[in-house]
Each structure stands twice: as C-alpha cells, then as structure tokens.
C-alpha cells in the first residue's frame, strides 16, 4: 500500500495544545505545498481542549487525528508508541515530524524501530528532493562541526525531529477548514509498564527558553565562584542566565542551564555571551537570537562570527563596568 501525506505530532499538556505543535505546522505546511499533499496533525491526550484542536486546523492542518484516553494524559512510551503505530497502520503517512522534545526524542526512536522507518534527530532544515520526493533532512553532526543531509530512500514513513523554537509558530489563517477525526484508543493500546506517580515543577529551566534576554557564561569565567559576577549582569538586564557545555561539564552550573546542541535552544531578542568561545555545539543553540553580543579575550573567537557587536577584552574588567552602566541607564529610564 502506498504511503502519502505529511503528518506532525502535536503535543498537549493538561489538555492544551503546546507551542511546538504550531512550529511543526509551519514546517509541515511548507513540505505539504512542495509535495502537493495534505498536512495532518496527530495528537494523543485526555480531554483535549476542542478549541485548540480547531486551532490546529486554523493554523495550517488539513486534518487532525486525535486519540484520547485517561492513560494518554501524560507521555508514556508504550501507549503513545502503540497509538502512533496504529496511525501508521491505518493512514500510512509518508512523513512524520515531531519536536525534539523529551516526548518526541523518546517516542520517535521507539516507533521508528518497530516501523522499520528512517529517523533523523534534531533537523534544522527539511526539504523535499525534487525528482524523487524524498525528504531531505539536514542536521548538525560531529559535535555540530558539520552539517549532514540525510535521506531515507526506500523505507516509509520518513521520520524526523526538529528542535523546539527553530521555527516560528504558524499563525491563524482566517477561513481555513478541515476535519477533526477522533480515532478510538482501544484498551490493547493503553497498557504501560511505566507509571507516572508525581510531578515536580521547576520554574528556573523553563524561563531560559522563554526569556527575551539571555546572558550566557562560557569557560572564560574560570571557576564557579565567579558565576555571581554574571548573575549580577543578568539581573541588571532582567535576563535568564545560561551557559556553554564547558561550564556545565565542569560542574560550575547545573545541566538545565546548558545552551547548545546537547542542551537548550534559545531564540531571545538579545543574547549576550561572555567568555564563550562559540563552538558550533554552542552556536547551534543560540545563533537564531535576534541580536548577539559577545565579550571575549580572543579576537578570533568563533562567537564573533555570529555576533552583531563584540568587545575584545577581559570579561572580568568589562562585565562589572557594563553591569553598573546598565543599572544607571535603567535607573534613569
């Protein structure tokens, strides 16, 4: 049987559709136009807000397939993968795209094995190969030092994850219509050997990805005792504090602060990095920021290649002066 159609995995939390879903609609819509086919959003959950499902249509989906059950309220790999495999069997999607979230990064490989599908993680560019119709998936590889373009010539579906916040979410377009299908999540799909027995919310890590201003600490900070210097700058700018992998690996800050390929992607209006050299691993997580400012002693540091404004000098001399100056300006403003 033929595989056709572009599908995205929409995500919900507490019954509300999450931002990543709309980012995937932006990606999916582009591919659907190029491939001249339909775009469908699949979603698993419990008591999903009906207006939110309609909004998926308004924002670019031609069809929504929702599977709902109390067992699907939160992500659990076994019921979610059973449901996705059920959809693959029923609808034969040619392409499935999910967010590179804690859900997508776990669910997609689990499903791809069973479907014998090709899966590419963390794609930054998705395109359709003109003559074959294959999905072309471009991603950073080898610590972000190169970009590799990957395709899946003879297995279907073609599956890919894309980083959250690597695309703008799709906007509502007036007058769109589409079908919302409720596919039954039968009991045989819902068994799980993992149970969610609690949840502890953390404010801190969330704010990094949502922040309009991010201050990042690099290895140039030299030791953990110097972190407060950067925290003061972040506070003066009303910014979230992040760090490069080197800083996290040395234990100077905790893992939720890590910006980069193996940490978080941030797309703030303003990013300021001090003592950050700009390994491609780090750049992969911040180079889409609107304005980038770098402070580094090395005039040839890679970070300056992606920066709009750079100060070549010692952060220990510059940062205290900068913090004070910002306080003055803001105090008067």
């Amino acid at each position, binding site marked *: 049987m033929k595989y056709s159609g572009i599908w995205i995995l929409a995500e919900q939390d507490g019954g509300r559709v999450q931002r990543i879903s709309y980012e995937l609609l932006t990606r999916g819509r582009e591919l659907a136009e190029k491939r001249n086919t339909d775009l469908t959003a699949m979603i698993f959950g419990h008591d999903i807000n009906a207006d939110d499902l309609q909004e998926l249509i308004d924002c670019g989906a031609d069809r929504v397939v929702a599977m709902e059950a109390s067992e699907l309220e939160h992500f659990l790999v076994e019921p979610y993968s059973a449901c996705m495999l059920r959809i693959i069997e029923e609808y034969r999607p040619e392409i499935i795209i999910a967010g590179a979230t804690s859900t997508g990064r776990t669910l997609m*490989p689990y499903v*791809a094995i069973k479907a014998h599908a*090709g899966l590419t993680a*963390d794609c930054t560019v998705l395109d359709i190969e003109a003559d074959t119709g294959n999905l072309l998936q471009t991603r950073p590889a080898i610590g972000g030092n*190169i970009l590799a373009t990957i*395709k*899946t010539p003879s297995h279907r579906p073609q599956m890919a994850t894309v980083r959250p916040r690597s695309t703008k979410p799709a906007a509502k377009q007036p007058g769109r219509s589409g079908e919302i299908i409720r596919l039954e999540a039968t009991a045989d799909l819902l068994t799980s050997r*993992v149970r969610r027995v609690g949840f*502890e919310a953390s404010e801190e890590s969330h704010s990094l990805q949502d922040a309009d201003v991010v201050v990042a600490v690099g290895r140039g900070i030299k030791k953990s005792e110097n972190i407060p210097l950067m925290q003061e700058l972040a506070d003066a700018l009303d910014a979230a504090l992040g760090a490069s992998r080197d800083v996290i690996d040395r234990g100077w800050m905790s893992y939720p602060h890590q910006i980069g390929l193996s940490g978080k992607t941030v797309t703030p209006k303003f990013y300021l990095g001090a003592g950050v050299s700009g390994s491609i691993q780090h750049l992969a997580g911040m180079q889409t920021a609107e304005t980038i400012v770098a402070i580094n002693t090395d005039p040839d540091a890679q970070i300056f290649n992606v920066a709009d404004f750079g100060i*070549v000098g010692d952060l220990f001399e510059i940062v205290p002066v900068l913090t004070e100056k910002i306080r003055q300006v803001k105090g008067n403003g």
Partner: protein
Amino acid sequence: MRIIVPIKQVPETNAVRMDEETGTMIREGVEAIINPLDLYAIEIAIRMRDEHGGEVVVISMGPPKAVKALREAIAMGCDSAVLISDKAFAGADTWATSYVLAGAIKRIGGYDLIICGERATDGDTGQVGPGIASFLELPVASYIGKVDSVAEKSCRVHRLVETGYEVLEVDLPAVLTVVKEIADPRLPTLRGKQKARKMDIPTWAGGDLKVEPDKLGLNGSPTRVVKIHKPTVARNCQKVAAADEQAVEQAVDQLVAFLQGKDLM
C-alpha cells in the same frame, strides 16, 4: 541485579578539526574516549550494584580499538565487558546499531536494567537507548536525573522534562537513559586499571548473535547521508577592543548606545 551499560567510543570533540576541502573530520591525532555522557550511565550503574549487589556488564559496538573504552569502564569499576565488532556492522545508522546492541543484550540475558547515556557526543541523536528498548520490547524511561529507589520488580526515578521532573515508577526489566545530574563519574583507580589490563574481553561478531545479515550495517540502515557541508555563519560584527581601563569604559558606552539604538535597554 544485573545491569548492562552500552557505551560508545567517540573522538574527543573539543579537539575535532575539520578538513575544509572535504568537510570531513580529521581523525589523525584526535584522542578516542568514552562518550562523556556514557560516564554518567557507568557511574549510576556501579552505585546501584554497590548498593543492591549484582554486576555491571559494559558493552560497546565499534572497531577493535574500542576495547580501550571497555577497559576504561572496567577500571572505573564495571565487572565484565564484551566488544561487539564486525566489519559487517560498518555504516550502521541508529536503527541498525540498536538492532545489533539488542542482539548482544539478548545473548547476555538475565538483566534487570539497561542504562544508557543520554546520547553520544559525536552522533548526538539520543536514539539508540530508546531503540534498544523497542527491539527488546522493554519500557524505556529517558532523561533520568535521579534514581530514588530500587525494588525487586520496579524502580522509582525522576525524569527531566521541559517543565520539571516527572516521578515515574518503572517495571523491571527496563531501559533507562540518564542525564548529567544523576551522579558525578568517578575516576579509574590504580587497582581498577590493573584489573582492566588483565581482563579477558571477548569479541562477538555478527555470527555470534541471533541477527539477520541483511539488517546489519549500511545495508540494514534505512537512512543515508547524502551530503556533508560546513555550516556558514555570518553576521557583520562591530568589534571594539578594550585593552585598558579607558578602552573598557569606551567599549561599554558604545555597547550601551548600540543596545539603546536597537531598543534593547
């Protein structure tokens, strides 16, 4: 309990240099190390064994030289090791890699937990841990930041997600993938190194596993790399030097003016 830890030998990525002409990695002179994120898996496995008894078996799929990574893991405190190596495995993507590792784990058998690092620092996919679980028909709990308790038939863990930590109860046997905050990896001890040097580490090839030859290596891989290129990054950086105290003042004033011009203050 028996814990299996699959690890990968990777190039020390901080030292990676690229051949500008071909866009490929220059491997000469680059040290091969245990994937740094696998050290956390090894550490938590050793701690769980020390607390609950049993053994830690470390395995790696790779070329013959990957035995060095296994000896390092033994030196840290793992009990035994198996190298899974065969020319037929070359070019494997995450599907074919998970397939072979799952085949080796089946042969070892009798396991309670399989603990993987979050991802390898060279491939950076994070797909092999869940992939192994899928082949073995086991549940997987990914991004584990803390193991709260271990009982005979289940364990309780904290899973790091975007908004906080899920507390999960996981039936055993299961696959866990762990993140950095789970435990600080120990350094190998002198006694450990001596033990590692003497240890007999068997090598299993495709023929030693119940695997189908057409599902191995490049032939068994659904994905193909079609192009490699260097990322291009370019913005016009307005660069100012701040070599002395006066220059620092000037540079900071310029930066503040720049930010005010962009309405960022």
